[in-house]
């Protein structure tokens, strides 16, 4: 019965803590800046990782597609003015769809695409025209087989019926070829030697370790930066907390007050920091890679990192404020009043 008489509506707690931020505006700005810097650092590192990985993948993809095109050109001459038939045998890899696009950009006379597997929604490049499988080879300088599905059943003679030059290219090393008389077969994908495969795996592992290490370091910097600024802003208010205790505030109310205040500060600071860090990182990488940066980046992963650093910012700000606030509110009022921190 006594308990019900000491209470504070949440709306009052909100207005008190909101006012606290407003009145101590300069202090709040400093605290927000502290949180912002921490999160900006974390976010710039994370964004850098995403960009770096994206750019590396993109560059490898490009060079691989370029190599395939060169290989094709070595067999049949430049793409320009030729007629090319494409058999889309199952879903395409990124590399294959890029190759298809580059073929259409190469101004061939015609790009005929026959689709065997209809299961997937497909978008063909502008130049390409859909044809039935029986017509894919007519007048063609080359027929290219792409896709995930098994190529064992393909009859190469049928594919090259009516072709100018009976040649079938396969885009993957794992495609099996059922050889046919008078049909030239070519594999466009490079065969990667075993030691290179090992080296790549090793390199990827090292890269990952280095990435984790730098993220952990930046997380530590963030933790220390945010904790420091939040601790400062709470400890200088010990007397205020003591006064409130003397006026009959419950410890839980004081905690509530600081919970609201610090989560607001944390949210604002973390949001600003995440934006600033991302923009800064994009700008820094833009200087080296130019527009490649924006094409290569994995937006989904970036969004996840953005949300993650928001969460990290808010949680750190709240923890760093709540701990000293709890400590102060559990003190005897007389001690809190005397404290001169």
């Amino acid at each position, binding site marked *: 019965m*006594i*308990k019900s*008489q*000491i*209470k*504070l*509506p949440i709306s*009052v707690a909100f207005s008190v803590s909101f*006012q*606290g931020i407003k*009145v*101590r505006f300069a202090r709040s700005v400093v605290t927000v800046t502290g949180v912002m810097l921490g999160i900006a650092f974390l976010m710039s590192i994370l964004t850098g990782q995403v960009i770096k990985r994206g750019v590396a993948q993109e560059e490898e993809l490009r060079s691989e597609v370029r190599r395939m095109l060169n290989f094709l050109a070595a067999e049949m001459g430049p793409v320009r003015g030729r007629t090319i038939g494409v058999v889309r045998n199952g879903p395409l890899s990124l590399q294959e769809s890029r190759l298809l696009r580059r073929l259409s950009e190469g101004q061939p006379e015609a790009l005929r695409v026959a689709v065997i597997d209809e299961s997937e929604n497909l978008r063909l490049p502008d130049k390409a025209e859909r044809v039935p499988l029986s017509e894919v080879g007519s007048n063609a300088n080359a027929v290219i087989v792409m896709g995930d599905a098994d190529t064992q059943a393909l009859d190469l003679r049928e594919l090259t019926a009516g072709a100018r030059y009976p040649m079938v290219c396969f885009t993957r090393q794992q495609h099996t070829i059922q050889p046919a008389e008078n049909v030239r077969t070519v594999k466009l994908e490079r065969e990667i030697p075993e030691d290179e495969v090992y080296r790549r795996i090793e390199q990827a592992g090292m890269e990952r370790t280095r990435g984790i290490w730098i993220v952990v370091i930046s997380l530590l910097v963030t933790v220390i930066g945010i904790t420091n600024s939040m601790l400062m802003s709470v400890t200088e208010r010990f*007397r*205020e907390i*003591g*006064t*409130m*205790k*003397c*006026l*009959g*505030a*419950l*410890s839980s*109310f004081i905690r509530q007050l600081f919970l609201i205040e610090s989560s607001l500060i944390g949210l604002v600071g973390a949001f600003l920091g995440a934006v600033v860090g991302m923009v800064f990182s994009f700008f820094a990488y833009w200087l080296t890679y130019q527009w490649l940066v924006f094409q290569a980046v994995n937006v989904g992963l970036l969004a996840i990192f953005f949300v993650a650093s928001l969460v990290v910012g808010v949680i750190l700000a709240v923890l760093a404020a709540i701990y000293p606030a709890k400590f102060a509110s559990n003190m*005897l*009022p*007389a*001690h809190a*009043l005397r404290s001169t921190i």
Partner: protein
Amino acid sequence: MSLDAAKLEALFTPPAVAERPCVIRAVDVKKIYKMGDLETHALRGATVDIYKGEYLSIMGPSGSGKTTLFNMIGGLSKPTSGKVYIDQVDVAQLDHMELAWLRCRKIGYIFQSYHLIQVMTCLENVILPMSFAGMESEEARDKGVFLLKLVGLGDRALHKPTELSGGQQQRVAIARALANSPEIVLADEPTANLDSITGEEIIELLYRLKDELGVTIISATHDLKMLQRSDRICWISDGRIEKMAQPSEIDFTSNEFH
């Protein structure tokens, strides 16, 4: 079975109430502050009874333990040994909820250095304890304005404490102490920073509270006028209570007061 009429009568008659119930009783309160190896005996066993509706002044040189005694009987600090009873309840037995209730409803504190919340306006400072007590915001605002008018600061309600003089800040603190109509007002040098006219007004105000509402006033003070108006004076020196006296028994012209 017949009942003894007299015994039955006695059963339903409330026990005779002592004429002056004891609001605060401190029994052999000791307080030791430890600073590393150094022990400071702020209180060396103070025993004092404070009765309901009395006006008690505590005086003593600085460092004599006034403020420590103050904190003990106000439930703001815990004694190293000894007991403090407020309304017959041992303060040490109360949980934090009940202590908060006590500080909120029962006792109004006035501090030597005001302890106003600097970032709030005067009115908000006065309203704060009422919000803690769960009062409706409109009612609290009206009461806050009324209290500020009572201490002569009706026109300064929306000023920040830093924009006011020391005396004005002290008056805001007094208004805040009265916010929840406490039964006990603990005042630590309430008139020390005031000019003599305002000081007298404050004394008059406290006196009226005591007279008309039966509020118990306990104040630490050196102010002669305040001492003269009080019911009892408690002398404290070096952590011990030296003597208790009525103002009439004391020669205010002696050297001790100048």
